[in-house]
């Protein structure tokens, strides 16, 4: 009971923090569904960071972590309340006629994904191999241990003690509140994060492009059923996909809706930082997102604006990254991908053309069979864009999700080329999951650049309007 109550409080904490940073009037506001969709992920991220800082680093009892989170909730709620009195209302999204059958298809797809997830969790409550050999194991170490050296010991190097702790920390925190280990609460954490991976892109596209495209965006994300399966397997890849999607979506929203202020940009940075606190690939995403934010500019004026808006984004990233770096340099042993070879050996891998060739064909193969989608997504998107065409007023911000995705994939490609492990084994065991990390963000990018086909009455957002003048 305690764990469920704390989980609800973490969602409220996430929402209060979002409202404190990105204020809106006291009554329900147009962007509140987006705020609420990101709240579980952000609340869990904040809870995990507090748990790590107070319990693992400062060796405080769990009760102190609960008190600190309660104080933060009070402070965030107070700030949100005060700021709401002077906050401008959110810009409403475009309105358009959406056929009822499309809502029905979304409802059926969501219901099937939900039931599938429940059945998979019920059949394997401890998850699949990586879940119990890495993530749940680390949560057990944190929950059961009276010291915090053993969990990161190189004596159990196969558990990847250098992997970051967002999921194990959040789970251990919830177990402490229940006083016992419950796999149902682990499944609930995964389910909430998986839901954010669909809901945040849905509400972002709904606010920026209209309901019709938002429904198609959510349907397309759900069509990669591997995401549901991996999420129910309690792997950290679905949570990482959620944080990547939240970061990218809030950044685009913040850039396209300048009236929202720096709040969404800071929250985007925070979500990117949480991605780095979820899996090592998230560190690369922090760079990908920051690079995409600067590269996707459509003129010198836009570049100056981007440099200015980069400040809250980078502040959000650094806030969490400081914790990640403390973990990496003070507690965790070095990563198996970087510590097992000299510079000369690594260099020799990067000049081996065969490694590029093998990695390239593995990527091509995975693109064609990706995610267990009935038809390869490459074909689906090609047909979609050929039929509906691109938007006429494409700003740099709209291209940002696809740019961040491309940079992230280029980074993954380079990591594969330089991996010290057997390349074929590494590609076979990880590539399908790695591509899932960017799937929700990439899909969001496709629908942000697609022409509106639902006759939405466009309400030009300030940034877009200015660029057109």
């Amino acid at each position: 009971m305690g764990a469920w109550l704390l989980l609800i409080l973490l969602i409220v904490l996430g929402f209060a923090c979002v409202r404190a940073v990105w204020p809106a009037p006291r009554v329900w506001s147009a962007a509140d569904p987006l705020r609420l969709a990101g709240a579980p992920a952000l609340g869990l991220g904040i809870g995990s960071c507090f748990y790590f800082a107070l319990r693992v680093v400062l060796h405080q009892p769990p009760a102190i972590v609960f008190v600190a989170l309660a104080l933060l909730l009070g402070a965030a709620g107070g700030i949100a309340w005060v700021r709401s009195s002077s906050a401008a209302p959110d810009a409403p999204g475009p309105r358009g006629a959406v056929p009822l059958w499309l809502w029905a298809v979304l409802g059926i797809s969501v219901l099937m994904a939900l039931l599938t997830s429940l059945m998979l969790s019920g059949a394997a409550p401890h998850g699949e191999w990586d879940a119990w050999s890495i993530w749940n194991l680390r949560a057990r170490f944190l929950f059961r241990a009276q010291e915090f050296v053993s969990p990161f010991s190189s004596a159990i190097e196969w558990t990847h003690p250098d992997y970051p702790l967002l999921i194990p920390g959040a789970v251990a925190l919830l177990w402490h509140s229940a006083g016992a280990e419950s796999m149902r609460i682990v499944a609930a954490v995964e389910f909430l994060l998986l839901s954010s991976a669909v809901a945040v892109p849905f509400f972002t596209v709904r606010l920026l492009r209209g309901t019709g495209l938002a429904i198609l965006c959510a349907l397309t994300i759900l069509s990669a059923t591997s995401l549901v399966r991996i999420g129910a397997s309690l792997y950290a890849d679905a949570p990482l996909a959620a944080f990547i999607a939240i970061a990218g979506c809030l950044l685009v929203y913040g850039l396209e809706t300048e009236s929202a202020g720096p709040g969404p940009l800071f929250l985007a940075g925070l979500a990117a930082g949480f991605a780095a606190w979820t899996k090592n690939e998230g560190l690369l995403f922090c760079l990908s997102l920051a690079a995409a934010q600067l590269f996707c500019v459509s003129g010198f004026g836009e570049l100056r604006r981007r440099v200015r808006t980069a400040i809250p984004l980078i502040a959000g990233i650094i806030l969490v990254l400081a914790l990640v770096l403390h973990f990496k340099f003070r507690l965790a042993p070095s990563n198996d991908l970087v510590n097992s070879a000299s510079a000369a050996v690594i260099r020799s891998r990067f000049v081996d053309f065969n490694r590029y060739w093998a990695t390239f064909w593995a990527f091509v193969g995975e693109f064609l069979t990706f995610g267990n989608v009935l038809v390869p997504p490459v074909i689906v998107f090609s047909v979609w864009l050929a039929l509906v065409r691109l938007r006429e007023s494409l700003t740099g911000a709209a291209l940002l999700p696809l740019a961040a995705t491309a940079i992230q994939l280029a980074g993954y490609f380079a990591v594969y080329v330089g991996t010290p492990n057997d390349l074929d084994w590494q590609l076979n065991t990880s590539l399908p999951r790695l591509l899932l990390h960017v799937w929700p963000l990439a899909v969001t990018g496709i629908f942000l650049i697609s022409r509106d086909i639902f006759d939405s009455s466009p309400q030009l957002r300030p940034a877009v309007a200015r660029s057109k003048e």
Partner: protein
Amino acid sequence: MTPRNLGATACLAAVSLLSTGRLFIQVSDFYPKAPAVDGVTEFDGRFAALRSLLPPKGIIGYMTDAETPAGDVNAQAEYHLTQYALAPVLVVNSAHHRFVVGNFHRTVTAGSLRDRGYKLVQSFGNGIVLLENEKAQ
């Protein structure tokens, strides 16, 4: 909406519905046949008594049947699951520690273990034993 746009929308909706539907049907078919207690929970339960005996920290060795081929995936999974069950004690896949947890599928006698230099501390049933390595003392 033009027929062209309607077609594009219907195609996307159909691909999504059929993809999620396919996994749903596969899992619905498999779920009723899944065992009531999953393998990890069952394995975990076998180690409950041993875990209650172990201190809150330390390192313990691990051994399994001598005939197990190197690189056997099932054996590797069982070793990982043993660590999962016995955390926060570190379980190292080596018999050269003072205390060693044995996870055997074939019958082993106290005498045969004694011949190899291990004293049986306690047997927990289902092939799970706690051994003391007399050479490591």
